[in-house]
Structure formats: structure tokens, C-alpha cells
């Protein structure tokens, strides 16, 4: 039912739930007593934080305890303005502005600190632990400005009263949740999952995952700051505990129990647990925490996707066929990008060397590649083939010499910058995004050229003709809505090749694209490569062990041995060369 695709029933369902929640929020003050209203207001503020943690952790894979610090910074920025300057409307506006700006700046700095080139996920978590501790200690040493250990109290905030705060917070929470749901389900939201799945592949698709993560951290710090502003106003008190790392772990705990990666789950988790804590902690103070702690440990081990996973298992599954239809966009052929440049050498390598300490892996490599050439790189194991490929696609790798892509020296450039020069790299082990669908993977490959929508899932998938051809010849065009995790090894290899071609590179680097493939799949890929280079004018460098395959498709063969380029010539020259026979069969055999 393709007509139905524009508005799936789930959207109506979500809209209905949001509307129902809004009604509850508006009439809530008439239903609940003062204590419940107070607690729920706080719980809903915490739920906003849980949404931000879910986007960072559940979707992007960054386990963070730092949202507490941004929340606390926002709360303190507001409370400091309101206590020391006053609470006229202008100053309230200033408080709100500072509650957003200060956390965003801090978030940007923390992001820069956390996501350097080559930093590990664990390191980001480490930084997110340090930040709340530092903020807390700064609050302690702030004297009268921050109220030190007793916090700030006795200032007047927004003139709303308890029902007003309840409604305001409820509306903020609904807006946050809806925006988060729309964003995470949009094309751009898939980018977060792509980063979580395979950051290296993102970089080699010309995206800058580090910068995206820094921007995300800064933006979500701002959201946490708004939550802090609400908290400072609604509760009338800010304390050092609001900024602390223990509070940061609590937010993660709510997110985990509710169900990471679902947005709704963490909202329910935060409200449910915080509300129950307030109700029960009077009667059984320590036992309640014990129960929550035990539940948390059990959930992490047995049910890592939280209570939302249980809910999903309980609900009837969506019809698989229907899901497939809704998820498969139609392929449209995108116009080809700009053509060749003045210098007709796509790649020019001179004097390239690479050493690990005293071990010289590559030395004195000179190589030129022109459009339309299919150059095969052969040589025994350990000859330095893969290292050479790395030096061509990452400007920080080479030790000596220079590499130019389309006339531009790549020295010191990161992979994503080199991709924009026109280099696509296919890895030896298929590097794709396992949690995405085939169509989403291909869309990621186009994301650097055409910014994905923040709001919608597009119904079409624009691809260059060459990439669409690969999909057709491998049958992947009928599997666009399938999750990648269900593909076979050969299909993943083809998908990765299609993704690389979708980048419209001038030069394609392929590291053993046929390893582990069947004879038929091999022939298909060989034919595709010949077509790409011979007819469409791509240049390609292919690392390959199968000499028969190399002989069938190459226009030129380069032989690498012990880090040196020993031979560079036509197929006939190389195949009949004495040197190659010596290298492959040992000197004694000659």
C-alpha cells in the first residue's frame, strides 16, 4: 500500500498519546494533591534529562554521567541571577538565557575534550564522570555566590504557583519528548545509530562523527540547562547534589530501567521511579533503594533494553511484510556530480614511506593512477599492501613522502576530509551499519552531499546510477527495507561497494573485495569493477590475492614486496615477469 506510506498509523498513535498526556497535564492540578503535584513536577523535569541521556547513550552509544553537571549549571546559573540580582521579567529572561548558554558552552568544551581524533568510548565516559565532580567542587568553593554546601534558597522565580509549574513542566516535557521522537526517527536521527554502530565507516563516508558528537553534546547540554532553569524555579532551592555525579548515575539508571533507545521508556522510567521513590521512601527508606539497585543490576544483565523490551515482547508484532513495505523507499537516480579536474592524475604518490618505530613497512613508493584505470596491488602477506591503502586514505598515516589526490596534497588530513576530495575506501571485512536497513546505509553514504532531513523519513533514496546498478545486479534493490544484520556475507560486501560508489569518488580503494565470496559473487563484483572503471571513468586500486581474478579484470598490476614497489606494468608484463615468480615461489625455485 504505497499510498499509505506518507503517514504511518504509528504517527497517529503517537499524536494521540501526546494529546492525551497534554490533557492530563492541563487538568492534573485538579486531580492531584499538593505533595503529588510537587513530586510529579520534579519527576517530569528529571524525565527531560532522561530523554537527553537516551539520545546520547541509547542512540549514539555515548554512556554519559555528565548531564547532571549541565543540569546543575543551568539550575545554578538561574538561581544565582534570581538571588543576587532579583527576579524582574527582564532578569528572569536573563536567567533563562544564561541557563542555556552556559551549559551549551560547557557542553561544547566537554565535547571537544571527550571526542578527539582516536579517543575511545570509555574515555568519553571518564570525562563525563569528571565534569560533575569538578562542577560540584566549584559550587562548594563558590562562597556566598553559590551558597557553598547549603545551596541557594529563598529567591523568587516565575510567578506561577504550584499548578502553573506543573503545567509548564508538563508541556516542556511533552515538547522535548515529541521533538526527540521525531528527530530520532528522521533520516538525520539514523546518523546517530550509524555513529554508534561504526564510527570508522562514518568517517570514510565523508562524515565527521567527532564534530557531530560535539554538537550533539552541546545541544543536549542546553536542553539539560533548560531543565535546570525549570528546577531552580519550581523547587525554589538548588543544592550541590543537583550537579553531582551520583545524580548523573541516577539519570542513567532511569534510562536503563525504562529502556534505552526508545525515548518513551526513559521518560516512563524517570517519572515512575522518582515518583515511587518519593512515595515509598518515607515508609521503607533503604529497602526501596535496595530494590531499585537490585532491579537495575538484574535488568542490565538479563534485559539490557529495559522495560520497554518487555512491553515490546508483550505487544503483538507488526506484520513483517508491512514493515518492509513501509521501510523501503523508491530509488531515484541522482544527477552525477562534477566531472574530472584539470590534472588528469587522480592519484599521485611520491617517495611514500611508513615506519612503526624502527620497522620500515613501506619505503620509496612512487605511483600514479589516472581515471579509468583499474590497478591491482599484489604481493605476498606482509608486503605492506593494506598499509599503503591506509596511507592513501588517511593523511596522518604516512611517515615520509607525499600523496596527492586530484592534485591536492593530503598530508595531515583526516579520512573524512580525504573522502570529500574523491576517495572511497572499501574495507577487507565489510564495514557497514548493522542496526540500520540497507536503504539507511546507502542514505548515510549520501549524507555528506545531501544533508538528511531532521524531521522526516524520506520516501525516496537518491543514488548515482552506478550505485543503483550495483544494487540491481546483486538483488539488493529488492531488500532495501531489510536490516543489514540479516544480509549474507556476500551481500554485505556488495552493499559496502554500493555505499562507496554512492559517494561518487574519483578513486576507489578496495581491500580484497572478493575474500570469502562464491564464484558467482566474485564474477558479479569483477564485472561491476570493470564497468565502473572502463565505462564510467572511475579509477580503482584493488588489493587482491587471487591472481586469476586480477589478470581477468585489471588494466595494470603493481607488485609490492617487503615494503617496496618492485614492478609496475601491464597485465602481460607482470604475469610473465621473472621477479613475480621469484617473489611468490621463493628465490631457490628460480
Amino acid at each position, binding site marked *: 500500500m504505497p499510498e499509505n506510506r506518507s503517514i504511518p498509523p504509528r504517527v497517529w498513535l503517537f499524536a494521540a498519546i501526546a494529546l492525551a498526556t497534554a490533557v492530563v497535564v492541563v487538568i492534573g492540578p485538579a486531580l492531584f494533591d499538593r505533595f503529588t503535584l510537587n513530586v510529579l513536577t520534579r519527576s517530569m523535569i528529571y524525565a527531560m534529562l532522561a530523554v537527553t541521556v537516551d539520545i546520547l547513550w541509547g542512540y549514539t552509544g555515548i554512556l554519559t554521567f555528565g548531564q547532571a553537571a549541565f543540569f546543575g549549571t543551568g539550575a545554578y546559573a538561574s538561581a544565582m541571577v534570581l538571588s543576587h540580582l532579583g527576579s524582574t521579567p527582564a532578569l528572569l529572561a536573563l536567567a533563562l538565557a544564561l541557563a542555556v548558554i552556559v551549559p551549551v558552552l560547557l557542553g561544547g568544551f566537554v565535547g571537544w575534550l571527550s571526542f*578527539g581524533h582516536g579517543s575511545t568510548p570509555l574515555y568519553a565516559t571518564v570525562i563525563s564522570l569528571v565534569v560533575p565532580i569538578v562542577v560540584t567542587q566549584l559550587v562548594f568553593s563558590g562562597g556566598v555566590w553559590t551558597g557553598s554546601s547549603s545551596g541557594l534558597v529563598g529567591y523568587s522565580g516565575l510567578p506561577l504557583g504550584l499548578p502553573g509549574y506543573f503545567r509548564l513542566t508538563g508541556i516542556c516535557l511533552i515538547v522535548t519528548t515529541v521533538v526527540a521522537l521525531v528527530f530520532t526517527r528522521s533520516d538525520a536521527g539514523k546518523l546517530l545509530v550509524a555513529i554508534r554502530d561504526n564510527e570508522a565507516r562514518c568517517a570514510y563516508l565523508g562524515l565527521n562523527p567527532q564534530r557531530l558528537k560535539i554538537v550533539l553534546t552541546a545541544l543536549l547540554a542546553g536542553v539539560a540547562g533548560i531543565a535546570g532553569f525549570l528546577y531552580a524555579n519550581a523547587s525554589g532551592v538548588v543544592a550541590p547534589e543537583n550537579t553531582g555525579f551520583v545524580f548523573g548515575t541516577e539519570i542513567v539508571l532511569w534510562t536503563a530501567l525504562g529502556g534505552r533507545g526508545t525515548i518513551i521508556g526513559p521518560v516512563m522510567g524517570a517519572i515512575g521511579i522518582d515518583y515511587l521513590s518519593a512515595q515509598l521512601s518515607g515508609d521503607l527508606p533503604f529497602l526501596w533503594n535496595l530494590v531499585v539497585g537490585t532491579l537495575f543490576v538484574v535488568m542490565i544483565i538479563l534485559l539490557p533494553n529495559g522495560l520497554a523490551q518487555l512491553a515490546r515482547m508483550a505487544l503483538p508484532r507488526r506484520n513483517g511484510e508491512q514493515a518492509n513495505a513501509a521501510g523501503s523507499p523508491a530509488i531515484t537516480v541522482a544527477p552525477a556530480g562534477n566531472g574530472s579536474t584539470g590534472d588528469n592524475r587522480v592519484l599521485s604518490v611520491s617517495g611514500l614511506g611508513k615506519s612503526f618505530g624502527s620497522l620500515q613497512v613501506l619505503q620509496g613508493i612512487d605511483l600514479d593512477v589516472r581515471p579509468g584505470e583499474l590497478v591491482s596491488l599484489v604481493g605476498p602477506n606482509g608486503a605492506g599492501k593494506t598499509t599503503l591503502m591506509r596511507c592513501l586514505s588517511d593523511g596522518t598515516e604516512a611517515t615520509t613522502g607525499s600523496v596527492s589526490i586530484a592534485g591536492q596534497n593530503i598530508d595531515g588530513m583526516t579520512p573524512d576530509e580525504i573522502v570529500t576530495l574523491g576517495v572511497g575506501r572499501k574495507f577487507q571485512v565489510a564495514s557497514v551499519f548493522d542496526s540500520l536497513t540497507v536503504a539507511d546505509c546507502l542514505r548515510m553514504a549520501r549524507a555528506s552531499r545531501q544533508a538528511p532531513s531532521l524531521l522526516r523519513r524520506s520516501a525516496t533514496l537518491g543514488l548515482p546510477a552506478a550505485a543503483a546498478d550495483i544494487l540491481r545486479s546483486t538483488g539488493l534493490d529488492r531488500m532495501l527495507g531489510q536490516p543489514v544484520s540479516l544480509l549474507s556475507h556476500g551481500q554485505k560486501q556488495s552493499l559496502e561497494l554500493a555505499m562507496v560508489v554512492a559517494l561518487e569518488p574519483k578513486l576507489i580503494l578496495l581491500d580484497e573485495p572478493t575474500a570469502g565470496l562464491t564464484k558467482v559473487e566474485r564474477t558479479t563484483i569483477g564485472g561491476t569493477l570493470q564497468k565502473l572503471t572502463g565505462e564510467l571513468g572511475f579509477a580503482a586500486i584493488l588489493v587482491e590475492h587471487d591472481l586469476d581474478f586480477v589478470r581477468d579484470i585489471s588494466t595494470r598490476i603493481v607488485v609490492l614486496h617487503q615494503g617496496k614497489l618492485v614492478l609496475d606494468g601491464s597485465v602481460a608484463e607482470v604475469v610473465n615477469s621473472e621477479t613475480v615468480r621469484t617473489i611468490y615461489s621463493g628465490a631457490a625455485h628460480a
Partner: protein
Amino acid sequence: MTLLLDMVTTAAILFIVAAGLLAIFGVLKIINFAHGAWLTIGAYCAVATAGLGLNPWAALPIAFAVGAILGGITELVIVRPLYRRPLDAILATWGLGIVIGQLITLWFGRDVQFTSNLLSGTVDVFGVGYSLYRLFAVAAALVIGLAFTFLLEGTRLGLSAQAVIMNEVLARALGVDTARVRLATFIVGTGLAALAGVLLTPLTSVDPNMGVAWLIGSFMLVMVAGSSFSTLAIACIVFGGAQVLVSTFVSPILGGITVAVLCALVLRISPKGFARA
């Protein structure tokens, strides 16, 4: 002179506290966020020992045994299923820390407890009176460091542990029972953490949340140190020294975060910390 002694003894205390965490991180590549809880368990072992009227020194072996047994159970039940999900392991062990903290609160109450001092009084060091116990801490740190060196270099378990540290897949292929190495390491690491908890009792108040304060500092030191005890010792001396200097000359509150901030900066500049391959 006192300053210098403060720096050395602070480094020694940090080393004692972080050693158990390092052993586990080095071999298992898992951050045991319940480390703080094990320090607390050790400290309460000292409280219980005193309550039974035993010699305060008896708390050391008791705490090691209690910590090791609980550690063994934890490894089998909680940590083992999570080796492939290191970030989840952080969360699960943190949850375990909450549980242990609450159990201790239910059992002993949430009030601060006091224990009898293991060693009291001062001694003259180069004409300055200095706490005997803090000097004893230096000796304890040296003993722990040497014991670990012996364990790693001189025993079969240590050799297997080194193999697992360097290349776990290969070690398993060569017939090392990596599951047992992990279990043994976790037991030693947690036993040591409990032991460190006893050694902390004369220096700090004992309450159900005492471990959290020590957790972050030792965690950061371990991140910088990687998997080697000698780099941990260097890190403790450098950052412990910096902590004492900041506390003395700037502000004690900022001194409390010196270790964490400096470690974070070092890791930003050199992701491998002090552990250069």
C-alpha cells in the same frame, strides 16, 4: 619537610586504594564500579572486628577473605555475562555498589562509625614529628606493589594473567583457561580493595558511602596507568604530589579534584596515559 612526607604518603595511600581496581582493569578490561563498595566492605570488616573485641590487625586478613569471597560470587554472577559489554559492566557494578551500600546501611545504620587506630602517635623524621600511621601506609604500599610484582612475574597465574593482558584470544588458543584467570584476578582485586578499606579506616570516617569519594580518584589513576603497576606507582606519585601541593597552596576543595582533572587532561593529550607501548 612535612610537605614532602605528605606527598609521599598521599601517593602511597592512592596506590593502596587503586591497586585492586588496576588488577581487575588490567586483566579483565572491565571497570569495577563497585570498587568503592568493596572499600566500604573492608572498612566495616574493621568495625565488626573491633565489635567482636578482636585485635584490630586481625581485620586485615578477615577483610581480604570477605572481599575475595564476595568478589568471586560477583564475578560468576554479574561480571561474567558482561565481558562483551564493557559499558554495561560499569553500570551493573555501579548498581551492585548501590545494593551493597544499602545492605550495609540496613545492617549497621547510616551513622559514622569509629574504629580503634591500628597505629597511633608520631615519630621523628629528620627532626619533624610525623604520623606513624601514614608512614606505615608507605610500607604497606611497597609490600602490595612488591607482592603484585612477585605474583605477576613469579607464579603460573601471573604468567597466564600477563598473557591475557597482552592478547586474550591468543592466550585462549594456547590453552590458557582465561575464564579461570579472570575469576582469580577478580578475587585478588576485590580482596585487595577490602584490605585497602581496612587500611583507610584510621584516615577517614567510616560510613556507608565512604567508598564513592575514593572511587573516582582511583578510577582516573587506573585509566592513566593502563595495566602496569609501575606506571600506577608513577601516576600516584605525580598526581598525589600535585594534589597535596594544590591543597596546601590553593584550596583544599580544589585539591580534591586535582587528581581527576589532571588525569583527564593527560588522557586527552595522550590517550594511552603513562602506559607507552
